[in-house]
């Protein structure tokens, strides 16, 4: 039954293919942009997830944090005279210790953990100097972290205990310092000490000032005692046995920390425990906001495209006025004419939508390839739900903007239409 309408609509579209393409340009651009935004968003998400995966998928972060109650006091100005307001954020919280990590091991769901201290040092090798972030971490890092050591090895517990001067390099800094030379067994200078390079990481595909490819990893005890002269940790990574029990384990970790840090009032917590979901949720919220904003902009193009389709449908109705009159004379009812033109409008917008999907996907593919070529772990993903939405939106636009011209056509008086021929 409906294939009659399709046949007639397709005949109409075929009658002027180049105009069809031009008409649907707005829809193409709009839908293309939507697909590009959604796909790039998914690609970016895949990149971020890959970065998180580097820490291991079933891990939890324990960070130090300025207690909320202290912050409140400083914001409340001069309640206490000796509070240096700027100090709250500048002075590090010094309460997270290796002892806390030892206690985490008593929690049944905790499999392993490592603490990290971070410092910045000038690193020198045969005349080349660079400023690098030095990550002091426990030997357990090499069991938990998913980064692959491409050359050499990580350090062990014995080396950590004996404050060994050994270092594992990120892939980029290794290339920067050594070029084609093999770094393993070479000595680099960090501050006043020589460190033996024992391993080099494979590239982790990250970018920015915090890229792990630019970092140097040494035993946390060595960094704390020989270079920094401190005994606290910046953060700790805890590996879980069962990811699904993360929320309960989080409470256990909080208990241990409150007990060790003598905290009874949660407002005075000097730490934050984040599951991976929590770390990602902030990022996802931001990504969603950006995506919505960009799609809102793209929908302006869709509106303009819809008006373009409406415009051309009015032209088409005028052009085929004689044909409409003939069809009515041969017994076409109002709704027959209405459906024919409506389906033609919807086909127009769907054609635009499909070309938009292909074009948008292609652009997203180019973006992904570009990102990959710069070493980012960026996946090319076109979300199926995005395609479904794009096609539905094109159809809806076709109906909304096609219905008025189609109704005009359907209401034509047969004799008036015939005489126009």
């Amino acid at each position: 039954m409906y294939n009659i309408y399709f046949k007639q609509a397709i005949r109409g579209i075929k009658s002027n293919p180049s105009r069809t393409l031009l008409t649907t340009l707005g829809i193409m651009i709009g839908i293309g942009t939507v697909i590009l935004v959604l796909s790039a968003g998914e690609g970016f998400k895949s990149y971020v997830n890959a970065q998180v995966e580097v820490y291991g998928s079933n891990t939890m972060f324990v960070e130090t944090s300025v207690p909320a109650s202290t912050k409140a006091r400083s914001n409340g100005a001069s309640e206490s005279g000796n509070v240096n307001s700027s100090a709250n954020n500048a002075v590090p919280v010094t309460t997270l210790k290796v002892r806390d990590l030892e206690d985490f091991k008593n929690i049944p769901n905790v499999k392993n953990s490592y603490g990290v201290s971070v410092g910045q040092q000038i690193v020198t090798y045969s005349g080349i100097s660079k400023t690098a972030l030095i990550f002091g971490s426990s030997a357990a890092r090499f069991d938990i972290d998913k980064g692959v050591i491409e050359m050499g090895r990580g350090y062990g517990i014995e080396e950590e205990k004996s404050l060994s001067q050994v270092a594992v390099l990120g892939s980029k800094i290794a290339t920067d310092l050594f070029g084609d030379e093999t770094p393993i067994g070479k000595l680099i200078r960090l501050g006043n000490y020589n460190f033996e390079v024992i391993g080099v990481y494979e590239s982790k595909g990250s970018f920015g000032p915090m890229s792990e490819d630019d970092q140097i990893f040494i035993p946390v005890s060595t960094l704390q005692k020989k270079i920094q002269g401190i005994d606290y940790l910046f953060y700790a990574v805890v590996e879980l046995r069962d990811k699904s029990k993360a929320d309960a384990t989080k409470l256990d970790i909080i208990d241990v920390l409150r007990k060790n840090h003598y905290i009874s009032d949660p407002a005075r917590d000097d730490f934050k425990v984040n599951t991976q979901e929590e770390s990602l949720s902030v990022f996802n919220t931001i990504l969603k906001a950006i995506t919505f904003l960009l799609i809102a902009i793209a929908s302006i193009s869709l509106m303009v495209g819809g008006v373009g389709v409406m415009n051309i449908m009015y032209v088409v109705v005028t052009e085929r006025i004689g044909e409409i009159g003939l069809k009515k004379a041969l017994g076409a009812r109002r709704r027959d004419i209405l459906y024919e033109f409506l389906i033609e409008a919807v086909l127009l917008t769907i054609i635009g939508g499909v070309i938009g999907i292909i074009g948008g996907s292609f652009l997203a593919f180019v973006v992904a390839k570009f990102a990959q070529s710069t070493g980012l772990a960026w996946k090319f993903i076109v979300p199926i739900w995005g395609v479904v939405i794009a096609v539905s939106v094109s159809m809806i636009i076709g109906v909304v903007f096609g219905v008025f011209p189609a109704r005009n056509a359907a209401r034509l008086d047969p004799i008036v239409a015939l005489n126009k021929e």
Partner: protein
Amino acid sequence: MLIELKDIIKNYDNGGVITKVLRGVSLSVDEGEFVAIMGPSGSGKSTLMHTIGFLDKPTSGTYLFDGEDTSSFNDDELARIRNERIGFVFQSFNLLPRTSVLDNVILPLLYNTSKANQESRAKLALESVGLGERIHFMSNQISGGQKQRVAIARALVCDPKVIFADEPTGNLDSKSGATVMNILERLNKDGRTIILVTHDRGVALHANRIVTISDGQIVSDVLVPESERIHSKEIKEDE
């Protein structure tokens, strides 16, 4: 009585200026008749045909078609009458461009309630006008005479009671015109009612009755004596 018009008045309102096109036309046509409506241009003959053919609604008057009063019919019911009981043949053929001969003839069947055997019904109609061989030609690849025969096949395909032909030979050379008239005569002989609008007496004389209209009124309504009737010869497939 197949068609019964009583006091049909048709006025056109052009921005306050009322043009009286039909001023009280009463006309009856029996099933099986071949009626020619004649008259000079502007006499109202086309409007009369459009009114009888349900393409236009009268301003007042009653129209009984096959015994039914059609004045209360809505658009859908009128569309159905046009589709099932009436076939139109126009002066300028009105075939769909970029469409095959077969699809042109199928067109009325698309709006027909019975959707079965569309292709075979269309082929049968085309064979009856001698175009069985050309069904896959495009509508712009055939001659004017052939186009009008396709139009007749299209008018026939839903098996209507009446065929309305509005100056069917007006755009044709005499030979093609004769072929078209021969087909119409044959259809009439098979029992179909034909109503023909023409200003050409030579064409009108194919009919068995001539109704002359002038200034929106019927001025004469005469039967054509068999001796005066013109019969076009059947002309074989023109190559």
